[in-house]
């Protein structure tokens, strides 16, 4: 089971990220994906998030409890949601919009200038798709094919091509980054010796609010 | 009894009434029956397919009309006749839908529905029998009670400003607005005929005597005295500015056809707009090919 949180500020397409991912795994990767979002009186510009639970079996408990992947596209959202990320989790962030604080030791961090890439492509509105591509490349919890298949209906028809290009840009960047990481790891030629991971809490903490 | 003698005895509007439900519950001297007669007369004269006429009432004395007229008829909840009628009309645009209810039902508890149906120009006819009080419950003050009139919940006289229903209907967009008293039998009939022939939100207010409660409590005499009052004090002014047709206690009653205009109904607006925005793939609703 994978638990993912996409976060940013209202207007960035954060909810869309959850929908596309959920749809991709559910309809094209033959898994189960439950997507929820925080509904509230939050205005554009304030922290917002969407969550996806991905599983080989039917998802019962609908919410994420201790996400192993946190995608952050704003400082506010990063600060709000970083503490709940699993100790062995993956943090994916926009390098221009999020300034990292000292991190817990085992958290893996991957950054992408998604907004800048999108601006270079003509419009920052595609930043979420760059981020989704990057997330797909890095996390490997959903296939790139499925993500691309999930786009029609969730992005405007006339921008479909551009969205796919934005996705691919982020995806390729992610794959390259992973390859580089692998090379460096080989160069150092150290056998990977990670301490055993603390077991994640199985059941969700009681929460009053999302 | 021979059949020809029976014909003599038949009530001329029997065909439009549920005779198995007569006698009705209305008091002697009440004006609701007169309005029903005018309605039946108008139906008789109209060329409508009577199977396609539906009558909807709310609750109250006039709310009982639906139970006596021989059409598909609905006696619904208090104040909700208009939205119920809206559902009937929209789900089957072939129907001619008439709401027949009292002032408390239409302008009191149902006031919100009234103004919105007028705003949308919903294609229904609303006949509002206005007897200035809540009669079914024993004569309480209403949204239409003239200032100073005495009623059981205004035991020292009414000090609330009343609604001028014709003005309200007009201001909200009704395409046909008329007011009569139950003395104006032929005028009421003609108004109903005119309104039935129109498309759009039509509103006919008929001032009627409530002898048992309103008249007695205000020492206005019996039904005849009230009809005399209507005779003396009503003034016909077709096309009158509806802002000027307020009714004071036992004062002048301006009657007539105040508004008669044409504009597209809710369904016409919906069809035109959706055809424009959706193009050929939209099949106009409720329009026979």
């Amino acid at each position: 089971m994978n638990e993912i949180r996409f976060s940013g500020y209202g207007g960035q397409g954060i909810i869309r990220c959850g929908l596309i991912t959920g749809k991709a795994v559910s309809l094209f990767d033959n898994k189960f994906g439950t997507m929820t979002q925080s509904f509230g009186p939050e205005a554009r510009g304030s922290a917002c998030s969407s969550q996806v639970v991905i599983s080989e079996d039917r998802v019962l408990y609908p919410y994420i409890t201790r996400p192993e992947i946190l995608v952050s596209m704003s400082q506010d959202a990063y600060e709000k949601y970083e503490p709940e990320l699993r100790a062995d989790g993956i943090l994916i962030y926009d390098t221009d919009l999020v300034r990292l604080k000292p991190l817990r030791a085992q958290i893996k961090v991957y950054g992408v200038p998604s907004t800048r890439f999108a601006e270079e492509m003509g419009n920052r509105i595609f930043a979420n798709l760059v981020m989704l591509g990057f997330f797909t490349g890095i996390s490997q919890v959903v296939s790139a094919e499925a993500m691309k298949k999930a786009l029609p209906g969730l992005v405007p028809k006339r921008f479909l091509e551009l969205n796919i290009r934005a996705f691919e840009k982020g995806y390729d960047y992610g794959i390259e980054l992973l390859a580089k990481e692998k090379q460096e790891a080989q160069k150092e030629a150290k056998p990977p010796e990670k301490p055993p991971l603390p077991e994640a809490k199985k059941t969700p903490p009681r929460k009053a609010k999302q | 009894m021979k059949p020809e003698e029976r014909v003599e005895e038949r009530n001329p509007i029997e065909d439009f009434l549920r005779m198995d439900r007569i006698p009705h519950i209305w008091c002697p001297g009440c004006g609701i029956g007169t309005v029903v007669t005018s309605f039946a007369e108008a139906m008789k004269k109209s060329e409508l397919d009577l199977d396609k006429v539906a009558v909807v009432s709310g609750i109250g004395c006039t709310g009982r009309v639906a139970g006596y007229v021989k059409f598909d008829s609905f006696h619904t909840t208090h104040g909700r006749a208009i939205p119920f009628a809206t559902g009937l009309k929209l789900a089957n645009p072939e129907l001619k839908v008439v709401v027949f209810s009292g002032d408390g039902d239409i302008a009191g508890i149902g006031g919100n529905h009234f103004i919105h149906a007028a705003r949308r120009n919903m294609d229904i006819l609303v006949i509002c029998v206005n007897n200035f009080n809540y009669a079914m419950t024993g004569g309480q003050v209403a949204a239409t009670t003239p200032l100073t009139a005495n009623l059981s919940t205004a035991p020292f006289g009414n000090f609330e400003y009343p609604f001028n229903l014709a003005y309200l209907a007009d201001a909200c967009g009704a395409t046909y607005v008329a007011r009569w008293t139950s003395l104006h039998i032929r005028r009421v009939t003609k108004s109903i005929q005119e309104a039935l022939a129109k498309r759009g939100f039509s509103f006919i207010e008929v001032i009627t005597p409530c002898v048992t409660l309103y008249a007695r409590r205000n020492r206005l005499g019996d039904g005849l005295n009230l009809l005399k009052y209507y005779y003396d004090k009503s003034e016909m002014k077709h096309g009158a500015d509806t802002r000027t047709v307020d009714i004071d206690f036992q004062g002048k009653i301006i009657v007539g056809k105040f508004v008669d205009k044409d504009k597209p109904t809710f369904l016409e607006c919906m069809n035109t707009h959706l055809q424009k925005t959706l193009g050929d793939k939209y099949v106009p609703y409720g329009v026979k090919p």
Partner: protein
Amino acid sequence: MKPAVRTGSHYITGDVACAEGAIAAGCRFFGAYPITPATEVAEHMAERLPDVGGTFIQMEDEIAAIASILGASWTGVKTMTATSGPGFSLMMENLGLGVCTETPCVIVNVQRTGPSTGLPTQTGQGDMMQARWGSHGDYELIAIAPSSPQDCFYHTILAFNLSEKYRVPVLVMADEIVGHMSEKVVIPDAKEITLVSRPKPKGRKDRFRLYEPGPNGVAPMPAIGEGYNVHVTGLTHDERGYPSMTVEAQEQMMARLKGKIRNNLDDIIHTEEYLMEDADIVIVSYGISVRTGLTAVDEARKLGYKAGLFRLITVWPFPEGRIKALAKKVKAFVVPELNLGQIRREVERCAFGRAPAIGVPHCGGWVHDPDDILKTIKEAAR
């Protein structure tokens, strides 16, 4: 026009799935009033109904919304509205009119937390007793509780079918989480969907009696405009539909209103059982709480507890018989619900002291922590 049934796999919310279920079931009139978290049902219907030859109208309030669907239903059209707590309260009087006049219609309540405005954007299951008894007087109706967007699709169709078959308003008691979550919803081929329509009168129009019951206790229902000249009233009425202010008429009418439901319980009540063969601790659950309940059952089984889950798809009428039978053989019932014990009391009533019905109280706003349910299972097993 576009096809009414969008056959295929979709990734949609429960609210949208309710709307798609309604369209697939043949709903062609929707009277709306916006309210969180049910607004999306109306939004989707507004978009879809023009495609399929139906009408949508946003009324001036929830009272008008339900009144409009009752009126529309009498023209022979299948009708629906959707709302949440405050709007559901406003609908109560006319829900009674629907029951009394035996008008088929479906009301979706995407529950939020109350009382009053409560937590408008957060989940709850606090309207379950209101669904049963919210309108004044004594009556029977049907309420169904979906647990997922896929359920929302099928259960809305089920709601229409039961409503048409028994001429009674049917409530779909969803909740904010189910309404707002997105999951895969598979919509089958149109011909694989069974649809039921209200019984229509046969025979001579002049001999027709509006409430003369058919074989299953349900009277055939003509449409307005067909020349039956029906009179429909919320007053106590006789079989002709005419008001009758007598004790006998009241008894006869009530017998019919109750009988058509109580005598067809086997057809109306839908439930599901999970790991119930050997269960001695039984979770009784409905709606979103089924999912947290199942999580707890799986955990409990891993720990060796004989836990099972009895799911109410139909919550009203309540499956009294099954609870009574279970009470004789199980150790305890555990009832997690997002209120302080509404259905728990029903379970307790039916168990009649033979097995305790232990609640897992929750004030709403969020779902149960499955650990809390597990804890209650452990306590019950002691």
